[in-house]
């Protein structure tokens, strides 16, 4: 099916918005969307959600002949499936240009980085070796399939267990799962891909572009790294030229992201292992929430907020602004609005600006200088006079802050 074309109005709006250093969903330039990693009941099955982009990776293995040129190594196959389920413009069967690029990048990330120890997959040199196959299915495409797919593939490889093999002279026994516990694959490191989108000839850069941002971007850079600061993949596409400093800056940003994501993967793997050991319920059934009508779910960002009006606003601008359901999570906090501020987890920096938790001052918003504080206060009063409902209560709260 043909994809809906992007109108000029949307394109101009998004580019202007990015030039003002803002994003449609309220993220910062270097922020990833919410990442969720879940494992299935079968070993080697991993489902990753990056915002609304969803990817499922499944690892399987069988015994076969090793390659002629490499008789001591096993074989790794990587396959990326783009079906119309992910996006109506993807065609089943025929690989589009985008599909080929994705497959190639995933192959490079997993094979050329030598993350998987191929020699351990050899059973009998030159005759029998394990063929490991990673199938990556894209379930929903809302931008940045590549990052999501790399996380899913690595998590699935780390989660997978292959049957144990014992060799006695000429005899090879492949033990069944009941016979002996399956053995994990030996992963040396976890290479992950981080995508950067560039706009206006490289002037503005965003991490983890959403689907609209991807349609508008001029160029893309993919950096594959692991947490040990080793660069595994680097690819730049699009018609633009990048400066050396930009490439270096992107790789240092990629390092922080990769370290954080690797931690998340390990956490998820641990949780799954604990659940299996204790015999608790695990698998994809835990992902489905049974108490909601709609399948869509917007995560609530839990922020410990004080009862100041300011803190409500900072929290809103920190969590994404489209979370209607997260705003319903804010309701209990609003009811507590009291005229006097308590001792709080909110650090007041200047008038009208508060900070919750770590992070410090926002480097984007222009913090008003001393002389313009007066005009800012006047503007605020003027604007409040225009608002109709709930005038009494909000004005009172305002007066507290202005002191």
């Amino acid at each position: 099916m043909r994809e809906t074309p992007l109108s000029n109005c949307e394109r101009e709006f998004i580019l202007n918005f990015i030039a003002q250093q803002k994003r449609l969903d309220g993220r910062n330039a270097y922020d990833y969307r919410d990442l969720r990693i879940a494992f299935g009941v079968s070993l080697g099955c991993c489902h990753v959600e990056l915002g609304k982009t969803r990817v499922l990776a499944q690892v399987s293995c069988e015994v076969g002949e090793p390659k002629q040129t490499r008789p001591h190594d096993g074989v790794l196959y990587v396959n990326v499936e783009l079906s119309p389920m992910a996006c109506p413009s993807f065609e089943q069967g025929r690989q589009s240009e985008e599909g080929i690029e994705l497959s190639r990048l995933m192959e490079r990330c997993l094979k050329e980085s030598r993350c998987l120890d191929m020699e351990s997959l050899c059973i009998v040199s030159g005759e029998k070796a394990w063929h490991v196959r990673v199938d990556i299915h894209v379930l929903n495409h809302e931008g940045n399939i590549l990052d999501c797919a790399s996380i899913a593939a690595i998590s699935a490889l780390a989660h997978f267990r292959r049957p144990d093999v014992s060799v006695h002279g000429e005899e090879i026994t492949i033990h069944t799962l009941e016979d002996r516990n399956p053995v994990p694959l030996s992963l040396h490191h976890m290479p992950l891909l981080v995508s950067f989108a560039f706009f206006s000839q490289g002037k503005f850069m965003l991490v983890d572009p959403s689907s609209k941002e991807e349609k508008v971007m001029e160029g893309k850079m993919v950096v594959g790294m692991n947490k040990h600061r080793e660069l595994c993949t680097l690819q730049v596409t699009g018609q633009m030229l990048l400066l050396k400093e930009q490439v270096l800056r992107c790789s240092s940003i990629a390092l922080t992201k990769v370290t954080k994501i690797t931690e998340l993967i390990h956490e998820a793997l641990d949780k799954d292992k604990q659940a299996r050991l204790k015999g608790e319920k695990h698998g994809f059934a835990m992902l489905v929430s049974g108490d909601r009508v709609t399948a869509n779910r917007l995560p609530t960002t839990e922020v410990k907020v004080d009862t100041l009006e300011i803190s409500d606003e900072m929290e809103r601008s920190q969590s994404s602004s489209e979370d209607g359901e997260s705003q319903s999570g804010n309701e209990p906090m609003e009811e507590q609005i009291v005229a006097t501020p308590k001792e709080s987890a909110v650090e007041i920096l200047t008038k009208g600006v508060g900070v919750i938790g770590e992070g410090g001052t926002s480097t984007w918003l222009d913090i008003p200088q001393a002389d313009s504080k007066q005009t800012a206060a006047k503007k605020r009063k003027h604007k409040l006079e225009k608002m109709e409902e709930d005038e009494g209560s909000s004005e009172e709260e305002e007066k507290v802050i202005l002191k």
Partner: protein
Amino acid sequence: MAAPIGRIVLPGDTFSFEQLQPPDEHKKILLGPGLREEKAEIKVLRPGILRFRKPAVYWIDCHHKRYIPAKGDSVIGIVNQKVGDIFRVDIGSSEQASLSYLSFEGSTKRNRPDVKVGDIVYSKLLVANKDMEPEIVCIDSYGRSSGMGVIRNGGFLFHTSLNLARKLLNPQCTLLKCLGNRFQFEISVGVNGRVWVKAGNDVQTIALVNSVIVSEFKDNDQIKEMCKRISKAVVRMEID
């Protein structure tokens, strides 16, 4: 047994004429979208809630995002191609609609309208049936544009479900009333689920877009609460 008005029905459910007889004994029953008469019974075609309106109108309220063109609908389309004398416009249906360059107010063979590929047009469906490609026009039967035509000067276009678009077009829509009390904005809603919004500045526009998208599954009280909070947030962000 009376028909289950207000209850969920599934495709394949059938009703007899007697079940659908309205209380005040009208002989004619009007079947709206989602219901079809087959031999001696009435079959349900879409999953959803069975609704009834006096005097004798029944229809199924179902949640869908894919637009099926119907004659007379006002839709927002995106111009995709210019082929000779017509524009190919994407309205969200399976076929692209055709828009002749003469279907604009004040356009003649010498005086062509200023429409580029990628522009958005607010238009009406002239021809829409399952056998032909749909045709749209930006002009009414008197030759006046009456608000239709190319939508210019910025703003933001987004896509919602058809149910939300119909809710917004309702004259008593709570969301638009509440937002209108707090913000100054222009909004254009197409029955094909496309909505165009423009407010004073970009931050307000995006706040409005997000509030519309999120209001789909909220009831009126929650919508009023949300509008209050959003307006406070936007005011703070602008002062900062």
